[in-house]
């Protein structure tokens, strides 16, 4: 029985493990943190339909509860060597495992908002990133650093994406709809809070996303302003002063708010040491690249090494799961040759 090592136990890793086991392979699902789920385990509800994230995760994990899947938690893949019989993988616990094929599912890293110094992330307490907002929603605690309820929350799109200044020219794809989702969730919890989205383009690429955008305007009174916020500063009273151009009017705009949520972009995890040792190719956006974007999306330049999920490009959970299944099938095709 062929043995596949999957690096990363987020949605991509879990679902490809489940599919590979069903196809008759033995799988090691290696996750560096203490639990499976990746970024999904930090989420509250999911776009586009408001489905509870914990519910989706527990169903995913149930798929992977199969006898041929060995889940290794608190285990980071440090290095990997390719040899005649396959791969030898070095783990953080000093152990090694051997495998016939390798599936990389290491996901993404959230852009560090402190790199955009003009927003004062890490300096002003009420400037937070989108994952921190997800946590606020999950715990049901929308209060600011001083314990009070914010009167106005502003979402700032494209932080660390579409920005040559930080070296990320690509769009992170999910942050527009995430801002819309989070603005709606805030309104559901507390309709008194005003919510604004400052955007350059609104990208609603998936089914029912555009409808969610419209619902945000119509039902939840979320206001959309077209312009990139150029800076945020804290007033003496602790409120945040933001500056942008209202590009549809053609005038600079000033606004005060209580909380600024930076829709942080997704960054590649393809700088991992094991990937460098194996020489796995990366694209201009630094994510793993495919040997063919159409026909061999999950295949890398290294024979026997495959990829799945957001380690290849920003994507939502639906696409990640589909991509994970496709990766499993690609591996199956590889061994069926």
């Amino acid at each position, binding site marked *: 029985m062929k043995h596949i090592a999957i690096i990363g136990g987020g949605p991509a890793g879990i679902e490809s493990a489940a599919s590979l086991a069903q196809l008759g392979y033995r799988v090691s699902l290696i996750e560096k943190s203490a639990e499976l789920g990746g970024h999904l385990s930090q989420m509250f509800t999911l776009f586009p339909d408001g489905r509870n994230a914990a519910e989706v995760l527990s169903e995913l994990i149930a798929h992977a509860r199969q006898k041929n899947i060995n889940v290794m938690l608190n285990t980071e893949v440090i290095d990997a060597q390719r040899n005649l019989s396959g791969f030898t993988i070095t783990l953080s616990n000093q152990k090694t495992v051997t495998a016939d094929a390798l599936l990389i599912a290491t996901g993404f890293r959230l852009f560090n908002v402190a790199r955009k110094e003009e927003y004062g992330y890490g300096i002003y307490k009420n400037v937070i990133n989108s994952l921190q907002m997800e946590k606020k929603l999950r715990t049901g605690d929308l209060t600011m650093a001083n314990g009070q309820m914010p009167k106005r929350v502003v979402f700032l799109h494209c932080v660390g994406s579409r920005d*040559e200044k930080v070296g990320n020219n690509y769009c992170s794809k999910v942050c527009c709809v995430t801002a819309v989702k989070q603005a709606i969730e805030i309104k559901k919890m507390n309709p008194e809070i005003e919510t604004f989205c400052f955007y350059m383009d609104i990208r609603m690429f998936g089914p029912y996303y555009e409808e969610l955008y419209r619902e945000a305007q119509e039902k939840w009174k979320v206001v959309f302003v077209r312009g990139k916020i150029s800076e945020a500063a804290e007033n003496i009273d602790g409120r945040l002063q933001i500056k942008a151009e209202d590009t549809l009017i053609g005038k600079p705009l000033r606004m005060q708010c209580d909380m600024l949520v930076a829709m942080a972009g997704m960054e590649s995890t393809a700088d991992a040491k094991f990937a460098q040792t194996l020489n796995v190719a990366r694209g201009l956006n630094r994510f793993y690249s495919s040997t063919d974007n159409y026909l061999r999306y999950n295949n890398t330049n290294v024979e026997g090494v495959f990829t799945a999920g957001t380690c290849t490009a920003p994507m939502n959970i639906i696409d990640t799961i589909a991509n994970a299944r496709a990766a499993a099938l690609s591996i199956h095709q590889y061994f069926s040759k």
Partner: protein
Amino acid sequence: MWGYSIAKSQSIVYDQNDRTIINYVLEQEPSLRTCMACGGCTSTCSAGNLVPFNIRRLNTLLQRGEYSQVKKEIYNCMLCGKCTIVCPRGVNIRNVVLKTREAIMNSEKSDANDTNAI
């Protein structure tokens, strides 16, 4: 104003607009083509917060061949370069301003020559 000013078209009649100035600017500073109109430049602009001058809007007008406001306001730029520092597309805005001024000067010179010829 009503009744006194020459009736100007309220729409951009793209095909009637002269492209000499914008073609010169795009040739000299091709980075302008990548502008995505985010407004970051206008938002940070030192001049635009004090006087009628919106660099993002002027650059858009410029690209459509709508020069009258550009000609009036482009000299308000203080060439401080703040806009260029923030631009997410790496447009060299400061140089766009310089090349626009140059192109306007050239076009005025050639207008003068034309008049002399008559």
